[in-house]
């Protein structure tokens, strides 16, 4: 891939900066840093379906397939040197062990020739069974720090996940809720990438004190592009 093409922001994506480092919010829910040649995805929650099934809720067993398919398309488009999976990569501690072989193979295929970091999450504190990649508590790269749970208060240069942010706006009496990247220029909270993951409004008290102006800018994920929405337009609920 040539440098010029890489500098172009893909259709429907939104260019931002985190603590001065340029990044692109991809409509599929991934974050790409062109200068660092690094791709971040968060909260894949692989094997969530089977995790529910174990407890008697037989939701469709196709979530892992859908999530990995989307991940593969992002990886193919950006072809990054480094990939960070920002925690809760598996829905529970035994998720990796339950991963059916074809999916394990596809995941290993994506990892080939790249640096792959599994950041530990609250759902998956330990290294995943039988998968390559390095498991870390957090990762510092070029002035940025990648960790699963966002730290309290302001945290310059932090990229985190865990909260599954979504945002809601009301236009012409109708309400639209979408998952989103939530940022204030200094830090960013990533949307959950997994196909069965729920979400939590960025105005919920769980986010209290994290963003400079109270509410963050929400980079809301529409059906074909990302929309940057100012904090003042956001609604709770």
């Amino acid at each position, binding site marked *: 891939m040539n440098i010029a093409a890489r500098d172009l922001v893909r259709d429907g994506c939104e260019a931002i900066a985190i603590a001065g480092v340029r990044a692109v919010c991809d409509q599929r829910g991934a974050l790409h840093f062109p200068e660092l040649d690094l791709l971040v995805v968060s909260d894949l929650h692989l094997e*969530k379906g*089977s995790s*529910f*099934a*174990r*407890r*008697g*809720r*037989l*939701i*469709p*067993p*196709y*979530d892992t*397939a*859908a999530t990995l398919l989307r991940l593969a398309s992002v990886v193919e488009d950006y072809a990054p040197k480094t990939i960070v999976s920002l925690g809760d990569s598996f829905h529970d501690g035994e998720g990796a062990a339950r991963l*059916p072989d074809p999916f394990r193979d596809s995941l290993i295929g994506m990892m080939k020739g790249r640096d792959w970091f599994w950041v530990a999450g609250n759902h998956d504190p330990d290294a995943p069974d039988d998968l390559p990649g390095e498991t870390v508590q957090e990762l510092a790269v070029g002035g940025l720090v990648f960790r699963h749970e966002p730290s309290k208060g302001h945290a310059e240069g932090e990229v985190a996940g865990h*909260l*599954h942010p979504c945002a*809601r*706006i*009301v*236009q*012409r*009496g*109708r*309400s*639209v809720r*979408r998952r989103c990247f939530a940022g204030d220029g200094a830090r960013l909270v990533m949307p*959950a990438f997994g*196909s*069965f*993951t*729920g*979400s*939590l*409004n960025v*105005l*919920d*008290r*769980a986010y*209290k004190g994290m963003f400079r102006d*109270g*509410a963050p800018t929400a980079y*809301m994920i*529409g*059906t*074909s592009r990302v*929309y*940057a*929405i*100012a904090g*003042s*337009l*956001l*609604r*709770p*609920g």
Partner: protein
Amino acid sequence: MTSQARLEPNSTAALLPEPFVRWFAERGWSPRAHQLDLLASAQQGNSVLLIAPTGAGKTLAGFLPALTDLAIRPKKRPGEAQRGVHTLYISPLKALAVDIERNLGKPVTEIGLPITMETRTGDTPAHKRTRQKLSPPEILLTTPEQLALLIASSDAERFFSDLRYIVLDELHSLVTSKRGHLLSLGLARLRAFVPGLQAIGLSATVAQPDELRRWLVNQNPAGDMADLITVTGGAKPEITILDSEEHVPWSGHSARYAIPDVYEAIRKHRTTLLFVNTRSQAELLFQELWRVNDDSLPIALHHGSLDVGQRRRVEKAMADNALRAVVATSTLDLGIDWGDVDLVIHVGAPKGASRLAQRIGRANHRMDEPSRAILVPANRFEVLECRAALEANYLGAQDTPPLIEGALDVLAQHVLGCACGAPFRADDLFDEVRGAAPYAALDRDTFDRVVDFVATGGYALRSYERYARIRLTKDGTWRVSNPRITQQYRLNVGTIIEAPMLNVRFTRAKGKSGAGSAQSLALRGGPVLGKIEEYFVETLSIGEMFIFAGKVLRFEGIRENECYVSSGGGGNVLVPSYAGGKFPLSTYLAEQVRGMLADPKRWKALPEQVSDWLRMQQMKSILPKRGDLLIETFPRGERHYMVVYPFEGRLAHQTLGMLLTRRLERAGARPLGFVATDYSLAIWALGDLGAMFRARKPSLAELFDEDMLGDDLEAWLADSWLLKRTFRNCAVISGLIEKRFPGQEKSGRQVTVSADLIYDVLRSHEPDHILLKATRADAASGLLDVRRLAEMLSRVRGRIVHKMLDQISPLAVPVMLEIGREPVNGEANDTLLLEAADLIEEAMGRA
């Protein structure tokens, strides 16, 4: 009129035990003929359907077989095993069960019957329920959900072993819903426990009594029917249509013009019951009446979203004759005992002839005196509709909807319930289920797929075998694999899925105006006023006013599952719109309205301003013949409009609108939007629709071809929020996902799994899944009204009349006025995001 006592019937004479004869005699009464007929049928071992108007002594009739049988049953001998329940009474309402206990208690005591009678509802305390299991009452009064729970317990067969009768009250309203499907399956199960079980159905008048007669008895083999006893009569109601001096509006539903007349009618009567079709209308009408209530008449409001305590107070005041008027939404929202209603006012068109009859029946509990009713049409089309309903009422015409096939999500719930009770054999359960009328036509393959769904989710990718909820064991029976599954089942039983609701709580503190965040709220809680749909509250900003519980309220914010409000003042006041409660125009009334339009001789019965309107239409455009479909096209502003007049109800029109705009888009007409009413549909476009139809590019025959219900419908449905909403309900009822209980915190959202996401995944990976099949069937009969649309398309084939006009026609005015008032379509979509994002780009000077 019913004939009174007829104690000399034929060979099937009822045996009325002596204490009953004496009880009637002491009061100077004699049993009514239908009460004795019902008893005679029951004593012959038959199931019976009793169709009677309100006030005919239906309840006593329904219980007479049970009471007389219990009166002569030998006493339990010491040492004899505890007896099970003798008679089960099922009602759609908890309140009704409680009321029956009170009303029936009186004759039981007076006759001196040693009968135990108890209620069992969701409100019954746990210790009482446990005691009822160990020592059952002879008569148990309960709801369909509680019956499902009883059946799913391991001692069900013993508990019901002595059951002789099941009395089903308000059967006409139960059978049309999924609740009715669940109940029919419960009934089939009871019949398996007790083959001689007799069912007694009590119903208001319906169009197809035979459907209910079949519903009551085993349909495997199909065809058997319960005995039928019909009480005709009651005095004919005196119904009039409000003939106001005021201008009847072209469109809208508020009937504001009629308020002075309505108020005058209330003043002239003792107690008036005012029915409206939706809760929004109830709130509005209540507000308007109080605005003109110079005499401070006690006028109250009653609808299903109000706090229970407040509803009970209104009902009590009503029973004590302390009120002059009550504004209410539906007969079923009301309790039973309300004093001396001498006038029913129906504001807005009744939408169905049977519905009107049932509502009017609420006035005047003594069936020998005529009820008085006034219909108040809210707009001109409603004048026609009211006229049609009134004529139907005199003809005794009935238009209750035909019953639909049993829903598969309900079947899935029942299959799991059966397994929770006792292991079952698939062959036996299949035979049993087919005995339930809604499932009489169920095929084995579908049944097996439902069982497979219950067991492992029914996915082609068979990866959940090890997590199966029920398992086929070596002895050929299916068993629950784990006690936790039974617990889950018990929490999710039932078919009533309400839109997520928030408590409306009153507070003194005022929040900051504007789109504030909930974090700034420091609110102290006051009383709860009722419940309101979450999606309405979510569109409010702090400081906005809305009407609820008859008050103008100021929105103060949301905290957890509560919506905080304070007293509001003037300004722009919103009225919450509620999901549901909007009945579509019945097919029968639609047909009558078309007939009336086509026949100028019948216009004499209409108010002059309305017949003038139709005459103007005749001059400026045309009035369609009874079987024709009129389509007008005309330019207006920069746009071209087409107005279609199918008269098939708003749901069917909305579906038609969606499908037509897709086709027009493909034909290059560049449609911009559409709006639907109960009577007509307007579509507007940039292209010249009239010229295109005249040039047959496309022809109207092509445009309205029935094949639109094939691929176009499929394609549109795929992304429709309507289908997603339907899927969510099916997913909950079938036990795929958990019910969301009130009080569950929002912050739980990120750990639950959303039905919308499951829907998307399932549709792309397994479009033939049984739950998607159930969803499509539901949507077709419910929200989309596809059946009606299909009937209409086939009816108008070759009968489409196109009229090109230079300007809007008189008949088109009502629907054109709805443009801008109704959302163009129900989808909340990315366009809104784009607008919001553009706002910022403007403000930031970035392009």
